């Protein structure tokens, strides 16, 4: 019987070594170890053995069972990992094939630029104010100290509205500043982004409609040096910490003293390139101390309070920043253009 057991063990070893799949191995397990299996059969016939033989054969039989079980477990382990490998292989993907796109929309570059400017000024404590685009001559010119005969008031410069006396399309967002001065308590610290209109025939650098962001600060002890510092901080955030500012004296009716503000070219760092036309500087803002006549419109005591104001063209900033060479692109709304501003 012992020989029979050894033979079973050898058969099992042989079968297992030839089995490849989990299923074959399972069949072997049933063949040998199952209720009707070969080893079970032998064990069942052990009743016919002598009292002396029984423990000996029993021991051998248990050893054979243990060996077979061990071999089956090992084979199963092996088959499992082989199958796993096969599955992984079959399921392997080309990870370089593009993913399924989740399309997000793009913001118009004008909005992108206004948002960026707004964010910077809000971080400096400026609130955002709004006003109408169809305005009165009073808010757009008179209250802003514009001389009665100033050429910007002419029909060749400003769009006027039919059947309405002294109504026009605002040529700047400064009317918002007057509205704020008239309606808000001091101190005032606002910016006013928005659309403006001037009689310019569209070409690569002109558009009859454009956007401005203007700023106004009125309070006690506000100085020209504060204006300088505010604009310096702004351009450093917008164009980078290396950016320098230069104020050149200029004349605007609304402010005195007035300045045009240049920034060191953020493309070439001031060495001179096509963006700054070789000068190293780019004009970007107009600014100045609010003229006392303007503050007086709001009944502000000009001995006690002073203020500064500044303004910039959004299109100009956007065109410089993104190197857009034709302003008309901004209003064509070609999706291939807009989708670049994400």
């Amino acid at each position, binding site marked *: 019987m012992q020989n029979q057991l050894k033979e079973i063990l050898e058969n099992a070893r042989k079968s297992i070594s030839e089995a490849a799949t989990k299923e074959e191995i399972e069949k072997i397990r049933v063949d040998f170890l199952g209720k009707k299996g070969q080893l079970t059969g032998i064990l069942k016939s052990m009743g016919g053995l002598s009292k002396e033989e029984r423990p000996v054969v029993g021991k051998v039989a248990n050893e054979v069972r243990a060996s077979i079980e061990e071999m089956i477990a090992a084979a199963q382990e092996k088959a499992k990992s082989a199958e796993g490998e096969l599955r992984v292989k079959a399921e392997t993907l080309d990870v370089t094939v593009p993913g399924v796109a989740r399309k*997000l*929309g*793009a*913001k*118009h570059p004008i*909005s992108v630029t206004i948002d960026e400017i*707004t964010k910077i*000024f*809000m*971080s*400096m*404590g400026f*609130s*955002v104010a*709004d006003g*109408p*685009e*169809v*305005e*009165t001559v009073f808010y757009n010119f008179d209250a802003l100290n514009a001389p009665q005969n100033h050429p910007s008031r002419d029909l060749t410069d400003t*769009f*006027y*509205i*039919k*059947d309405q006396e002294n*109504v026009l*399309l605002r040529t700047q967002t400064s009317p918002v500043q007057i509205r704020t001065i008239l309606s808000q308590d001091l*101190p005032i*610290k606002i910016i006013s982004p928005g*659309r403006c*209109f001037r009689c310019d025939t569209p070409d690569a650098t002109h558009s*009859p*409609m454009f956007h401005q962001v203007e700023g106004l600060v009125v*309070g006690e*002890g*506000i100085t020209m*040096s504060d204006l*300088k*510092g*505010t604009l310096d901080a702004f351009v450093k955030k917008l164009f980078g910490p290396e950016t320098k500012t*230069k*104020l*050149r*004296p200029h*004349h605007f009716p609304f402010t*005195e*003293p007035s*300045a*045009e503000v240049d920034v060191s070219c953020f493309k070439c760092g001031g060495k001179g390139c096509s963006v700054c036309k070789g000068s190293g500087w780019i004009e970007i803002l107009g600014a100045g*101390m609010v*003229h006392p006549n303007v503050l007086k419109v709001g009944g502000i005591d000009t001995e006690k309070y*002073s203020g500064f104001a500044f303004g910039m063209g959004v299109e100009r900033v956007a065109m410089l920043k993104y190197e857009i060479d034709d302003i008309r692109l901004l*209003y*064509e*709304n*070609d*999706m*291939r253009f*807009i*989708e670049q501003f994400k």
Partner: protein
Amino acid sequence: MLVPVKWLNEYIDLSDIELAEYCDRMIMSGSNIEEAYKVMGGINGIVVGKAVKVEKHPDADKLHICQIDVGQDEPVQIVTGASNVHEGSIIPVVLHNGVLPDGRKIKKGKLRGVESNGMLCSPSELGVEDKVIPPAFREGIWILEDIGAKCGDEFAKAYEVEQDVVDFEITPNRPDCLCMLGMAREASAVFERPLKYPEIKIENEVDDVKNYIDVEIKRPDLCSRYVARVVKDIKIAPSPWWMQKRLMAGGVRPINNIVDITNYVMLEYGTPLHAFNIKTLEGGKIIVDVAKDGQKFITLDEAERKLDSECLLINDAVKGVALAGVMGGLNSEITDNTETILIEAACFDPDGTRKTSKKLGLRTEASSRFEKGVDANLCRTAADRVCQLIEMLGAGTVVKGAVDVYPEESKPIVTKVRTKRVNDILGINLSTGDMKEIFEKLEMKVAVDGDVMTVTPPTIRFDLLEEIDYVEEVARIYGYDNHPVTLPAGSDIAAKTADREIEDLIKEKLMGMGLNEIQTYSFVSPKGVDKILIDQNSYKRDFVTLINPLGEDTSVMRTTLIPNMLDVLERNYTRNIVKVEAFELGRIFLNAFKTEEGLPTEKKNICIGMYGGNCDFYQLKGVVNTLLNELGIKELTYTAEKNEKTFHPGRCAAVSKDDKVIGTFGEISSEVIDQYNLPARVYVAELNFEIIYDLCDMEILYKPIPKFPSIERDIALVVRDEVEAGKIAAMIKRVGGSLLEKVELFDVYKGKQVKDGFKSMAFSLRYRDANKTLTDEEIEKPHQEILKSLKEDFDASLREE
């Protein structure tokens, strides 16, 4: 304002200052520069030649054969087409292999069989701008003044033609800078160097002006001063080369000595001058008075002008002779035979001059200067300077004295300037002495009393009227670069307007759904509303209209965003972009509704437009619904809208919340599509921002996550086509009561197994009790109620599950 730098050096010595430094410091003190350039730069190898013999070409009427002395042993033969070359003419000559400033190389050759070894040059060939070329040389060769140069000398060197010119951008508040002395005054303050005024001295004066002319000002409000001087024995000739050169560099065309001298003094002092042929003045009188209404007058440009009683006219005893401050009259013009002239140096009112000039559409150098302001106190000086130059150039004999009518002298406006005030506004810390010094550099007189300065400006500084004007003077001369850099004190909490917060949110949500933002013009063509078939009596046709639009397509303010959206979609479609999903958030302008101030109402709308890809009505509805839900506007009502002609009558809906209509959306009608180059299916929504803003509810209250399970039941039914799913869902909700948590349409089917004119719909219902586990028995009652109502209300036949 063109400033020839060498000329400037007559008044202030800047000869050791580099041009770049000059420009930089002028800019930083407030004289902005358009550009700095060289006139007649790059002239090389052009020589001075003298015509020794000029003959007609034997075979060509228009050609001349010239023998030109260019300092070589033999004269050089050059053939020219010009007719103004005579024996003795001195001419700039380019010889064989010479190069013109524009790079053209001149080779010898034959002209109609006659050898020509170079070219005689015209001013334009040497790079002189057309507008300053003297009339005599416009069509011909440049005949030079004999200044003693030798034949064969380098022309550029001998005639010192190359000049640096700086073009200043003078702001309207500084007309005092529109002349050489004004710019010298600025430079004198900036470089702290003395200013040398021309020394005016007339050597020989004869006779008496009183024997020639009398002047009367009838309108001192329009003419504050009139100075007349007389010069006789006039010899009209070209002005000397040095003067011509300066005038040309200053942008003025040389004409003849008298005209050139008046222009020269105008450039020098900023005072326009005029010269009359005194022989044409009747009655020995100048009367300054307004014209009669309808009076006709012929100006120097030979145009007849119709005047009125606002136009100031210079008259003699019987007739008008000049349009004051604008242009002389043809009847008193100086000609080559004029013997005696009257020099006028007057000061005319800016507004009066502007009105006349505008009314007649006649803007001249003189009128533009008077419009900006001319210093009356300079009139006599300017007239004397003209006389001095006439004498100096031998162009006439000066008559003694001047008639000077000056009813009320122009006095400087004296202002008190407080040192502390200046420092407070600028954020600097200068002493009274520092500021006094700055003012004195600018030719102001300063009296100091403690820290208050009483400042008297030169009368030419029309811009200095009040204290703040002096703050500017200190700021710019001290230099903006020297100001400290500080930030305003105090901390402020920044906020956007509530409107903008919601606008930003809407943009974020729409972009999150894949839509691109567009921005289009606020002004549009009125035809846009025709194209989208807006009703004839709609408020959308009541436009805010521009008086002076650039064109019809930008002539009215938009009342709807849809035409602009369709234009953008069309543009993209034309450019072969197969799919577009876009939105605009912008203002519309309603003339029909006025604000308290009487301005048109400005409202914001949101317009969504799409075509291509899988887009259909329900895609658009999904965007609209998601947007509104995301803004906290839920439980919306969608109603079929059949009357908006812009849209397909069977594919348009109004979306509303309670009673408020938020907007309309749908497929664009085929009639509208036909007017554009667009695909057949285009989907557009226009929503009202104000209503969204009012309804928008961004407050979030947490609802507990359900603890007990729900029971799901599906209902499938068949109804007639026209029964709307929305109505069925609303009924189910109503009847289902508090246990019904959710009802959802999940299938609509038409086709086989469903009769024609009917459709099958499937709804899924979810029942839940928040406080306990529901049993089937508990929902049986409400569910049966629903089924019953479906049959009764909608004549629905239920399909068994």
